[in-house]
């Protein structure tokens, strides 16, 4: 029987509020620079929460011809831009025979939210009775997967995954298994979302979990800090090029990290309230697959939304799985800077974890101000930490109780 196939990350691409490429993104995270600001895409004056982690100074015509843009929702644009960077960074070239072994798996929480929002505004507010024919192909959740596979000629497995805040962690995990178990050799995997619309913000406003961000918006999201006020919506995309290890080695590819473990579970409990045992099962499943002991994990990029419920429960989850090592593992929430980018957030955070391995530096939890007796672990407050990272974990615990966890390892 042939040996088990290994999966490595050979390309990274980011198009997000904290940076329009992977290096800028990670550089800003290390500097604890938050991208949260007052919403500029439309006038948020009537909302109680008027801030978000927006992709600022973005003009789509700088990146796409007009005719093509007619079919691209904002979330698809972000996904394509991140995919372009990941593929270019990998230096990979394809033969025609390889294309059926080249796949795309993308997560999104809200799909073409901008297109849906505009359509409903036309119907309900303007009284239109008909919508443009491009509405469906633009708004559908698999549009980003399809557009990426079209642009790069990826003819292999293609999948869209939607599990709210865990979408792209699940997407990367599923892609990991496709390569591991022989369904594909190369996959562009990640997530994208552009949820900053009037309708989506109003919907989140009523859940009462958004930080108001009065005063300085960049300080609005303060995960694990006792003075936290809630989460901040973000947008953007991150895409990773996953490649079978021998394939990458043969072509002399630069390897950022090896993807070694994927765990998932459902709380099967409450639609919004997280549990301890559900996420703990997902973490244990990822550790088991990777054959890694809890003590070997150096860095956890937490789900860390900045809501009381998440931060306290996630701390308990880490204690439940890591026992005494919980006090020694470095934990940070980069959502404090790039916000909660919904279906893109897991991919952004895994990218941060993989880059922490490559750069030997862990991004901090920005805006940490006050210790919370219920969150008493090492959250790497406010300052990046230079340290060799051998094994890093990325957590995503979605509304609906759908949990996903990924483990990456330094390849020496």
């Amino acid at each position, binding site marked *: 029987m042939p040996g088990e196939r290994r999966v490595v990350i050979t390309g990274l691409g980011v198009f997000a509020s904290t940076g329009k490429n992977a290096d800028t993104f990670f550089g800003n995270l290390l500097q604890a620079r938050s991208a949260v600001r007052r919403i500029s895409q439309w006038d948020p004056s009537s909302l109680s929460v008027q801030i978000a982690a927006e992709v600022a100074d973005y003009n789509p015509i700088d990146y796409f011809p007009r*005719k093509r843009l*007619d079919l691209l929702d904002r979330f698809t644009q972000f996904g394509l831009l991140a995919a372009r960077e990941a593929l270019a960074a990998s230096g990979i070239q394809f033969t025609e025979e390889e294309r059926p072994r080249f796949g795309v798996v993308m997560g999104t929480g809200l799909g073409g939210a901008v297109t849906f929002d505009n359509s409903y505004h036309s119907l309900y507010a303007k009284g239109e009775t008909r919508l*443009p*024919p*491009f509405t469906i*192909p633009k708004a559908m959740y698999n549009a980003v997967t399809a557009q990426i596979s079209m642009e790069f000629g990826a003819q292999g497995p293609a999948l869209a995954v939607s599990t709210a805040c865990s979408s792209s962690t699940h997407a990367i995990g599923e892609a990991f298994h496709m390569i591991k178990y022989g369904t594909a050799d190369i996959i562009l995997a990640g997530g994208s979302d552009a949820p900053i619309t009037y309708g989506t913000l109003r919907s989140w406003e009523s859940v009462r979990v958004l930080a108001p961000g009065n005063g300085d918006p960049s300080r609005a999201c303060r995960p694990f800090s006792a003075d936290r006020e809630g989460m901040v919506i973000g947008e953007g995309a991150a895409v990773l090029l996953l490649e079978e290890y021998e394939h990458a080695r043969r072509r002399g590819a630069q390897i950022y990290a090896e993807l070694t473990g994927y765990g998932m579970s459902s709380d099967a409990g409450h639609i919004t309230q997280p549990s301890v045992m559900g996420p703990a099962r997902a973490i244990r499943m990822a550790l088991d697959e990777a054959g890694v002991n809890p003590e070997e994990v150096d860095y956890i990029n937490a789900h860390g939304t900045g809501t009381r419920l998440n931060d306290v429960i996630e701390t308990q989850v880490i204690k439940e799985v890591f026992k005494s090592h919980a006090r020694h593992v470095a934990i940070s929430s980069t959502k404090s800077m790039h916000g909660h980018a919904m279906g893109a957030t897991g991919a952004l955070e895994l990218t941060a974890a993989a880059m922490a391995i490559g750069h030997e530096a862990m991004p901090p939890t920005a805006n940490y101000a006050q210790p919370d007796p219920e969150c008493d672990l090492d959250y790497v407050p406010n300052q990046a930490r230079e340290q060799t990272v051998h094994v890093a974990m990325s957590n995503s615990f979605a509304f609906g109780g759908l949990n996903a966890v990924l483990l990456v390892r330094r390849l020496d």
Partner: protein
Amino acid sequence: MNIQDRVIAIISREQRLEPGVVKPQSTFAELGIDSLDGINILFALEQEFKIQIPDSIAQNMRSVSQVVEALTRVIEGKDIADLVALVRGTDPAPTT
């Protein structure tokens, strides 16, 4: 502008084509107009002329001249049964 000029202007706008590219004798294939683009153009024409183009015609448009003829007939309230048959490549239904 006459109907033909308005049709050409709308096709140019929707396809993001430079002025002068779309000509009365152009076929959709020559202009790179695929099935989805075709539906989009018909939608724009319906908005512009405030008319409904029957699906049977909408699905079979292949050239600028076909669009102009169909539109002219619809606008003038004329019978289009023979046109439907023509674009489908069948004989018109016998009239009794």
